[in-house]
């Protein structure tokens, strides 16, 4: 009796897995997508790198200056699902992504799949990068491959059951990968540029928006603040009813880290500002304008 039950349950699970495998294309990056891409522009790749905040997770904890370009990974992120460890994304061929093709890179960035086709955990904010221009991703690929290689091996995530069952993420992705922009209300041209920077690259919503039961950010509470994922306190809201600083003060804060009363940024935002300070002034102004136009 038990044997039969276990056998049929295993068969059902296996069948379900095969079905998922069949329904989800192995490589959603098509040849025509790849053919349309120009050779990577490393200067733009650097801009995407800083806007995307790659170093904040993939550089070593406390890294400053040039050390932020060594993307050895290892930083731990404790969540209710277990602990995630940022992987090595330096161009080391064994430990990092040095042997990834550009198509594999785009698939990871925009479809949340590893080189083996299996889903990646959304602690890596591919639901944001999904919205990015593929050419920006290609430029980023070129830029990352130009950075120093590091041989440190990536550490496996330490997750609790059932979150350690990676194929279950196919369902998560079916629910959350194709949601599009959080803000769909009409925006000025400048705020549209800001929306691209905030929603597709900088993934501000990952900390500034609260999450639902399955860990996806709640578009209905977009940038309205959230519990601090790495300790006590709250990550503040950014909507204009709450963040009442003038636009130019927001843009200046993103550059020098000082609030209008010249208090300084704290917590993880300090690291975010190190990234934002690498952008052009009109990028920071566009982000501020987007925040001012938030519903």
């Amino acid at each position, binding site marked *: 009796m038990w044997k039969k039950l276990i056998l049929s349950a295993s068969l059902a699970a296996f069948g379900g897995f095969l079905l998922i495998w069949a329904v989800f294309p192995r490589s959603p990056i098509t040849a025509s997508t790849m053919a349309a891409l120009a050779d990577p522009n490393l200067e733009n790749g650097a801009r995407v790198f800083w806007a995307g905040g790659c170093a904040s997770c993939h550089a070593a904890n406390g890294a400053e200056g040039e050390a932020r370009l060594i993307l050895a990974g290892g930083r731990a992120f404790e969540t209710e699902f277990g602990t995630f460890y940022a992987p090595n994304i330096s161009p080391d061929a064994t430990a990092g992504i040095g042997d990834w093709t550009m198509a594999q890179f785009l698939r990871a960035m925009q479809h949340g799949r590893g080189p083996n086709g299996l889903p990646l955990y959304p602690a890596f904010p591919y639901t944001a990068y999904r919205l990015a221009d593929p050419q920006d991703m290609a430029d980023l690929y070129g830029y990352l491959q130009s950075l120093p290689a590091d041989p440190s091996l990536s550490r496996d995530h330490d997750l609790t059951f059932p979150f350690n069952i990676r194929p279950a993420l196919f369902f998560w992705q079916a629910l959350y990968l194709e949601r599009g922009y959080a803000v769909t209300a009409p925006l000025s041209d400048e705020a549209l540029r800001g929306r691209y920077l905030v929603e597709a690259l900088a993934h501000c919503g990952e900390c500034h928006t609260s999450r639902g039961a399955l860990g996806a950010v709640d578009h209905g509470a977009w940038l309205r603040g959230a519990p601090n994922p790495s300790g006590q306190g709250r990550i*503040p809201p950014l909507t204009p009813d709450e963040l009442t600083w003038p636009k130019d003060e927001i843009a200046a804060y993103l550059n020098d880290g000082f609030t209008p009363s010249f208090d300084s940024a704290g*917590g993880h935002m300090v690291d975010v500002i*190190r990234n934002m300070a690498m952008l052009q002034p009109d990028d920071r102004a566009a982000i501020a304008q987007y925040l001012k136009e938030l519903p």
Partner: protein
Amino acid sequence: MTFSASFTTKSILLAAALAMAGLPAIANEGAIGARQGQFKIMALNIGVLGGMARGTVEYDAAQAQIAADNLAAISQLNQAFNWPEGSDMMAATTNRALPAIWENQDDFLAKWAAFGTAATGLQAAAGNGLEAMQAALGPVGGSCGACHDAYRQPQ
């Protein structure tokens, strides 16, 4: 009966113990207020320089020098009495000092010393024109951020 009596006695003792455990937190209010005052003086003076650096206020070499001198002077204050044990963020609701300060005291003091180095550099440059002041203000802001990144809780 005996049980409930002893239970009550224990409760009173426990309540008394808890109240006494709360006493040091109240005693630390002076230190919390003092260090917050120190940071407010820093913010006021950084604001003078920051306004010039951002271009919202015209650069004035004499004013910039005063602000930089003040920051350098504050950076030389010995922090020995500002951070007593038990004055972390649990001690007062307006206080965001993380317990990590007391777990990594050497690093915490190294970060204060880094502010001192940056403030001394700013003191040497603040009167030498807007660009020199801007360049020297960056490391000061960086030293604020480095410490707040590790040791101050977000809002």
